[in-house]
């Protein structure tokens, strides 16, 4: 408890700042943090959008369309669709349209303070599950680029058959290319094992059925 006493005593000493800066958080950035989850049949996007205090008024105007001072579920959903509509996603060059599945909005005072994040989830369903082999996801965020700061990351896939082998971004993290490998599923692997074992068994049986010819006689015959 000595530390407790020391620090409590220190707390009453005069504290002098080394800086005049008082800005508690980013003021003029429209932070858009994206996380991508890869599955064989879909890509899930989690996106947190946080406008800084100096630009919050513009963001609030986008969300609170009827300007009644509160964000209704319908307004939150409309804003979510607007944001997600600015995002391009494809797998192996084939467009994957994103459908908003969840959106959670803060209060307007939180947004005005630059402390509120609109959190949304969108799902991009592939026409058919990707096959085993190499694939690439391409993601680009074109929502409000004028004051945006971006983050984008791939989450470790929940499916162990999928392994991410590379992530390439631009300098702003506005876009990312995720290279990944899909390993064959267990039915395919079991089929290969069964096939291999069958072949081995076949070889053993063939060797047993075929009468062995004495090596000396073969050598003699060649002479």
């Amino acid at each position, binding site marked *: 408890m000595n530390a*407790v006493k020391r*620090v409590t005593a220190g707390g009453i000493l005069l504290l002098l*700042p080394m800086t005049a*800066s008082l800005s508690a958080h980013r003021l003029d950035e429209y932070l858009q943090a994206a996380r991508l989850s890869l599955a064989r049949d879909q890509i899930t996007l989690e996106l947190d959008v946080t406008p800084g205090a100096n630009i919050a008024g513009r963001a609030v105007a986008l969300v609170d369309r009827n300007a009644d001072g509160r964000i209704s579920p319908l307004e939150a959903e409309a804003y979510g669709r607007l944001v997600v509509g600015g995002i391009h996603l494809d797998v192996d060059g084939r467009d994957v349209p994103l459908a908003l599945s969840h959106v959670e909005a803060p209060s307007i005072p939180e947004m005005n*303070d630059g402390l509120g994040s609109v959190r949304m989830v969108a799902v991009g369903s592939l026409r058919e599950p990707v096959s085993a082999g190499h694939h690439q996801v391409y993601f680009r965020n074109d929502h409000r680029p004028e004051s945006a700061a971006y983050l984008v*990351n791939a989450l470790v896939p929940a499916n162990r058959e999928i392994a991410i082998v590379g992530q390439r971004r631009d*300098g702003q993290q506005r876009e990312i290319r995720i290279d990944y490998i899909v390993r064959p599923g267990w039915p395919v692997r079991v089929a290969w094992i069964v096939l291999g074992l069958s072949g081995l068994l076949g070889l053993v049986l063939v060797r047993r059925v075929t009468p062995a010819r004495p090596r000396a006689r073969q050598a003699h015959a060649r002479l």
Partner: protein
Amino acid sequence: MRNRHIIPLLLVLLGLVGVAASTARRPPVQAGATTRAVTAAKAFLATLDDAKRAKANLELNVKTRTIWSNLPTGTTLQSGATERNGLKLGDMTPDQVKAALALVGSTLSQAGFRKAMAIVDADQVLETNSAPTRAPAARIRFGRAEYYVAILGSPSETEPWMLQFGGHHLAINVTLAGRQNVLTPTHTGTQPASYTVDGRIVRPLGGENDKAFALLNALSAEQQKQAILGYDVRNLVLGPGTDGKVIQPEGVRASGFSPAQRTMLVDLAREWVGIVSDETAAAKMKEIEANLSDTYFAWAGATTNGKGAYFRIQGPTVLIEYAPQGQGDNNVDHIHTIYRDPTNDYAAKAAAR
């Protein structure tokens, strides 16, 4: 010895080996840390009247444990109707504050407690300087009075409970589950990054910053090439509100580090791991060192100390991020960090057992 005795004897031996092996896998005994915390928690609760105790002592569940944040007080957070769990220091008597801080100190190392209080003092500097120009209607408040202490669950040496100590730039979350004391997830931050107390310069997260730059500059050109990400990272990737997420590791893998580089990496991680009580931290450090070959160090930003840079340490059982928040030249005065264990946040392993 007759043959019929051999099989039962082997089974008995096998059983003994199994018991020994399962015991060996458990972390070292930490009953001391838990006992100290339980005693301090009960002492703190004893100083409170019913109304304050009802605020300070809440149920532990998946909802309450996630109510913590990097944000200042004064605004309703998205994660719940209350901005933070517990009772704030500003609503306590001096004796209650003393007991509350003794409780916080009982779960932390001396260095960890000093770090936490240096973060609180930095926020007091922010309050002192912002109060004169603050609009009367402004809700946001900084300062020492705005830090909350909460006990989630019933303090126990066997059953899980949790201590939260948090406010702006601080969220200490210690889950105590019998022998286990788990510090993750925990957020530290500071603004200003440097201030003076009685003529002495205090840098709450100075060790984190300086050790990281030292490590980066101890890497070879090839290692730096792998470590430096080549894009801006403007904030924490897995900050508050992102429990349960695991990002794909990036950067340079420590498997290729020299012994000296490994020591520097471990020493850097200790800045976060060592916040918790010494015996708990020692067990965690051992685990991190065992996984070092599978641990990554990533960097974005300036490579010269004194300028802002983001870095990340990510291994099988640890994720640490350090993210300057400012912009332009003034990007070193406002720092956010996060410390997580993707396998054991909120003592998930104990809950699984």
